[in-house]
Each structure stands twice: as C-alpha cells, then as structure tokens.
C-alpha cells in the first residue's frame, strides 16, 4: 500500500468505489477475496439482497446479488460491448503473480501481460461473471501494446 496522499479538496477519501450486480455474489466474493487477495470490509445478507464489500486501499470493490434480479444479462466484452461501466483497474505491485493466481483459479485472460511505455506492466482478466479486471502496477492508462484474446 502506498503512503498517504495529501488531502484532495471535495473528497473525504481520494478513492473511487466500484459496484457489481452479480448472479452469484458468493462466487465473486471468493474470487476477489481468496484469489485476488483483497481484505473483506464486511458482508451482509437479508431477504432482498446479499452483499460483499472488499477493500482496495481506501476504496472498495462491492458486489451484490438481488432476490429480484435485473432484466438484462451481463454484456460481456469489456469496453467493446456496450456503453456504460465496462472495466475497472486494481493497482497491484506484481501483475504477473496476480494474473497467475487468476488463471489457476480458472479466469480467462483478455489482455496478456503487457509492457507499458513508462516501464510498467498491465494485464486484463475476466472475473467469474465476465467483468473485466485490469491489473496495473502504476497509475497510467497506456493500452497501446495491448493484444486482445
């Protein structure tokens, strides 16, 4: 984890959280908790939904499953499938290690390990429900060397 960032005007935490609607939130929770290794903030279950919230620094990766599910299927395809929220990025130190963990757990690789122009590395895997998860070791957004699988 990095050292503390200076306060950022307007935000109580300089962090974004991301939320997914899951078909099987327990399966997603296993992926983000056990495979990726994010620590659980808390989980909760009641008559209408069950949720798992995992920390990523001061942001969280959130997943919920609803008794009344949404009408449309997962769009799949990451950024190329449909307008809207289509992927998110986890800041991990050793991209290769995390990709290997994901592959061993059965995840498909969408963009294999790729060197970036600033000397970093990134890759993209799909979680068990097809959400694209970018793994990147620095804050940039260079996708110029990406090969899609």
């Amino acid at each position, binding site marked *: *984890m*990095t050292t503390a960032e200076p306060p*950022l005007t*307007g*935000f*109580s935490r*300089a*962090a*974004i*959280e*991301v*939320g997914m*609607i899951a078909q099987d939130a327990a399966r997603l929770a296993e992926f983000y908790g*056990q495979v990726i*290794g*994010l*620590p*659980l*903030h*808390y*989980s*909760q*279950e009641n008559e209408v939904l069950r949720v798992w919230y995992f*920390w*990523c620094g*001061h*942001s969280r*990766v959130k997943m*919920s499953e*609803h008794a009344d*599910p*949404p009408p*449309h*299927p*997962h769009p799949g395809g990451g*950024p*190329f499938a*449909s*307008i*809207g*929220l*289509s*992927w*998110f*990025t986890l*800041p*991990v*130190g050793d991209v290769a*290690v995390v990709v290997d963990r994901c592959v061993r757990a059965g995840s498909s690789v969408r963009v294999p390990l790729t060197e970036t122009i600033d000397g970093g590395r990134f890759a993209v895997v799909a979680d068990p*429900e*097809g*959400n*694209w998860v*970018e793994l*990147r070791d620095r*804050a*940039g*957004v260079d*996708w*110029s060397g990406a090969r899609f699988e």
Partner: protein
Amino acid sequence: MGYTKAQGPRAAVGVDLVGDTVQVGLTVGRLEASLAFYRNLLGLELLTTSQVPGAGTITQIGRGPVRLNLFSGGDHRPAPNHPGGVGPAPQGGWMPGGQFGIRWFTFKVDDLAGIMSRAAALGYEVAVPLIEASPNSKFAILRDPDGNSVEFVEYVDVTAYEERGQDQ
C-alpha cells in the same frame, strides 16, 4: 439474515497493492459530454490519452489519485447502455439495476449538498435524491450522460465508518 463484523482498510491484504484506489473504466457514447459532467461536478481534468489498437481511445481524467478511464471507439459502435443502477426503489425495497455486471461507482465527498446543488443547476439527472441513510451518512445517485449510476456518499466520520462498516 447475517452480518460479518467489519474490519478497516488496513486489514491484512493478500496482494501487494501499489495504490489506494481502484480506477473505473467507462465506455462513453459522447466523450465531450462525459468530460463536462465529471469536470463540472468533481473537477476531474483530462490527464492523458492512449490509443487502443484497432479499437479507439482511452481518455484518462482525474484529480490526485482519483482516476476515470473513458473509452471511446472510433468506428466501433458498442450496444446501448441499460440505465438503472442500485439504490432504494420508489416503492420500497432495493433496485437491482438494469443488467448484471459493473453497474455503479461511488465517490466519498465532503459536501454532498453542494454536489446536488451543482447537479441541479446544470440540469443533470437525479436517480436517487439525497437521502439521510443513517445519522452517520447520506447519499445520492446521479446519472451521467450515458445513464451510469454515479453515487456520492458523505459520512459524518468516514474513518469511523470504515472501521465500523454498515450501520447496525
């Protein structure tokens, strides 16, 4: 019914993290409209762009470590969004959103009323108006130009919330 006792953000991590936040990626229909929305509400500015081979461009906007990545495809024509995100349903209960997948994202802000005032002045769509969720927190959800659910949360004490978790 069940609840797992909360642990704070400094809990033991099973992965080497090099940042304190995720970045969120959005496929946008009208890049300029998205840029204006996030600049007007949160002061996010254009940081860099990257070509995606054979597909389009990613424009990164942000402030400090807060980053959004906006994909806009040249000749690529992605399917339309299915608006609808999580939140309290007008008739009670909880909306599951329009489809499965990544459906909402959240900013933790220190002046939610100010955000909502700016949104109203700019004519942005309110999906869920400001709600006092508990004595310790309030939130609201706006729709961005592509119909995405953008949640804003203000805590009386964000550190206490992080350690405590959901209000019981």
